[in-house]
């Protein structure tokens, strides 16, 4: 009978009521050096970033990615020769590169989806993409669940998906809506209006408004999602981006031209040179700053903390047939006195 009685375990250290001590007045301790320590550590380990580009062929996806990362990371489809046909189904091509800047090394993986939206019958053409994304989550989950885990699990999950909207000037196509509806739940989608140099300023702003409205009406949450805004600061900043700038109307180019004595990236047309990084011409600079300079880490975190966790929870639920909320080994491990975590389940 005595085996049923659990051994009394000591209560784990529980933050009963943290006492706030302002130590500024009493002398310098050095706690803020942890920022430096952390920074050094992360620079040593390096970063992973996986970006997926989705859109019909000819919308300038590869050019845009090359412009974003200022290097030839994507092979342009225009280099296809006539023998290569358009693929029959959506293919997924992931190519990895290592880029370094300012001591920071990043392993960038660009995932291209040739064949999306190019067939006559495009039903379910998002399925291979969804499958690929879920496969990456599965890979990560398997590594995480291992008993002897790797020190650093290689992260191949898609952090960001740039969806290219064709600049018709009217509204979103049914294919666009279907794709975004399905995928906004599993990955961070950033809608982008491609080849924006075909629209005038008024057409551009009208189109953007219409697109925003349609996305809202269809309940499509693109990144940055409203529900994940953490504090007021984030909320106001993200609201501004959501309601004014997105979707970004971009122009991509990797050719340089001389404008006003400076060398700029641009597209040369008979009626002028469209400067890619000029905010008056297109919103490329906004997109670049948004994705790379301010929200890169956030993209990764939302993928890890929210999309991946949703996938994991669903997977464990389906496989184990356990009621939601119950621990994986809840009935197996001997009962431990509940640790009142500050966050509720």
């Amino acid at each position, binding site marked *: 009978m005595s085996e049923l009685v659990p051994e009394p375990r000591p209560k784990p*250290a529980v933050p009963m009521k943290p006492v706030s*001590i302002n130590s500024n007045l009493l002398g310098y301790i*050095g*706690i803020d050096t942890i920022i430096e320590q952390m920074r050094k*550590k992360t620079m040593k380990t390096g970063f992973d970033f996986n970006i997926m580009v989705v859109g019909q062929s000819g919308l300038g996806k590869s050019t845009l990615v090359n412009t974003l990362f200022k290097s030839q990371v994507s092979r342009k489809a225009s280099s296809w020769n006539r023998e290569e046909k358009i693929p029959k189904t959506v293919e997924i091509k992931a190519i*990895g590169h290592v880029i370094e800047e300012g001591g920071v090394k990043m*392993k960038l993986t660009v995932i291209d989806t040739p064949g999306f939206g190019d067939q006559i019958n495009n039903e379910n053409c998002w399925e291979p993409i969804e499958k690929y994304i879920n496969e990456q989550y599965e890979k990560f989950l398997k590594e995480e669940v291992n008993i002897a885990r790797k020190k650093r699990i290689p992260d191949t999950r898609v952090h960001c998906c740039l969806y290219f909207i064709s600049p018709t000037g009217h509204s979103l196509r049914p294919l666009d809506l279907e794709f975004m509806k399905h995928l906004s739940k599993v990955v961070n989608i950033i809608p982008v209006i491609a080849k924006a140099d075909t629209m005038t300023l008024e057409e551009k702003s009208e189109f953007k408004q219409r697109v925003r409205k349609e996305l809202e009406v269809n309940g499509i949450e693109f990144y940055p999602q409203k529900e994940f805004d953490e504090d007021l600061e984030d909320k106001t900043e993200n609201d501004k981006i959501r309601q004014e700038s997105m979707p970004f109307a971009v122009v991509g180019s990797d050719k340089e031209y001389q404008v006003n004595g400076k060398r700029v990236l641009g597209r040369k047309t008979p009626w002028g040179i469209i400067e890619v990084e000029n905010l008056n011409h297109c919103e490329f600079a906004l997109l670049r700053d948004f994705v790379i300079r301010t929200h890169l880490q956030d993209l990764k975190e939302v993928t890890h903390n929210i999309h991946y966790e949703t996938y994991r929870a669903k997977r464990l639920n389906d*496989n184990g047939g356990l009621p939601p909320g119950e621990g994986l*080994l809840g009935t197996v491990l001997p009962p431990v006195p509940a640790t009142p975590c500050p966050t509720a*389940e």
Partner: protein
Amino acid sequence: MAATDIARQVGEGCRTVPLAGHVGFDSLPDQLVNKSVSQGFCFNILCVGETGLGKSTLMDTLFNTKFEGEPATHTQPGVQLRSNTYDLQESNVGLKLTIVSTVGFGDQINKEDSYKPIVEFIDAQFEAYLQEELKIRRVLHAYHDSRIHACLYFIAPTGHSLKSLDLVTMKKLDSKVNIIPIIAKSDAISKSELTKFKIKITSELVSNGVQIYQFPTDDESVAEINGTMNAHLPFAVIGSTEELKIGNKMMKARQYPWGTVQVENEAHCDFVKLREMLIRVNMEDLREQTHSRHYELYRRCKLEEMGFQDTDPDSKPFSLQETYEAKRNEFLGELQKKEEEMRQMFVQRVKEKEAELKEAEKELHEKFDRLKKLHQDEKKKLEDKKKSLDDEVNAFKQRKTAAELLQSQSSQAGGSQTLKRDKEKKNNPWLCTE
């Protein structure tokens, strides 16, 4: 780290691509750090040492504040752990600091089990984290990490060598936590004795195979300083929260008749080194080691104990789940068996009790019958007695009436004779009458 190392890590097919301009992802570490700063940091220190070695004072000195708590007595029956959490704020960095102290360590007469509460406590923290990690719906990024990141082991300044209690405890703890041994109250040892003491301690630790925490030397910027510090282990520290005026500055110090010991003077003690190493240089590394080495080891052992195994990658997709199911059924079966056993035992006990009670009832009935019989016998006897008494009384009455009759007759017949007789009777009252 060379670019080739990264390329190798990254796998085939990944080439380094040169950048044609400023992209801007060098702000990535800043983005990461900003996020962490907004979330705040956790740091948990465990102080192990005998009562009276100055653990609380040292913590106060390290963090420049006065933490709560009265000093412990020496009469604790067993070792207990006392933990407190504090929110410290410096510039824009918030730190949730948890300090856990042993209470009553080394005070008992029999110290064989002294290390057990400490080991159990550390394991309980790992367990809590593991439970959270294995939950289906988890919030790991907002979880308050209570795992112990650093263990400061306080060595008494005897000047000779480590006590056996110290060795045993450190041996048990070295695979579970980062141990940093320090010599407490080191103003009790002179300089020369101190060097000998340190050498003795280090050699004892090495010969007993105790793995203490080594400051990391693989990052060039800190390799040098960490390397020199590793040679100074164990640190000889002095704690003091009193401030005395020395020269024209207020410093933390201890005043003796023969001089003043300054806490922050590197020539007097290693306090500054300890603070540098613990907080300013290696806090992040301590946290990482705890997570990637000690916690992983605990997790691996725990899961293997449970019976889970890693299958090869191309076999069943989710073996953990299936093993869990099997285990679950097994345990359910066992549970049912135990239930059956208990039920049987219960039924048996009930039967026994019933039989007992029946016996008792029977006995009582018998007793009652016996008593009743006795009572009846008694009653009968009494009635008999009464009857005989009544008979006697009746007989007496009869005789009395007969005698009276006779008396009246004889008094009528021969008065004098009777008178004489009466006189005789009177004189001889003892003549019986008939």
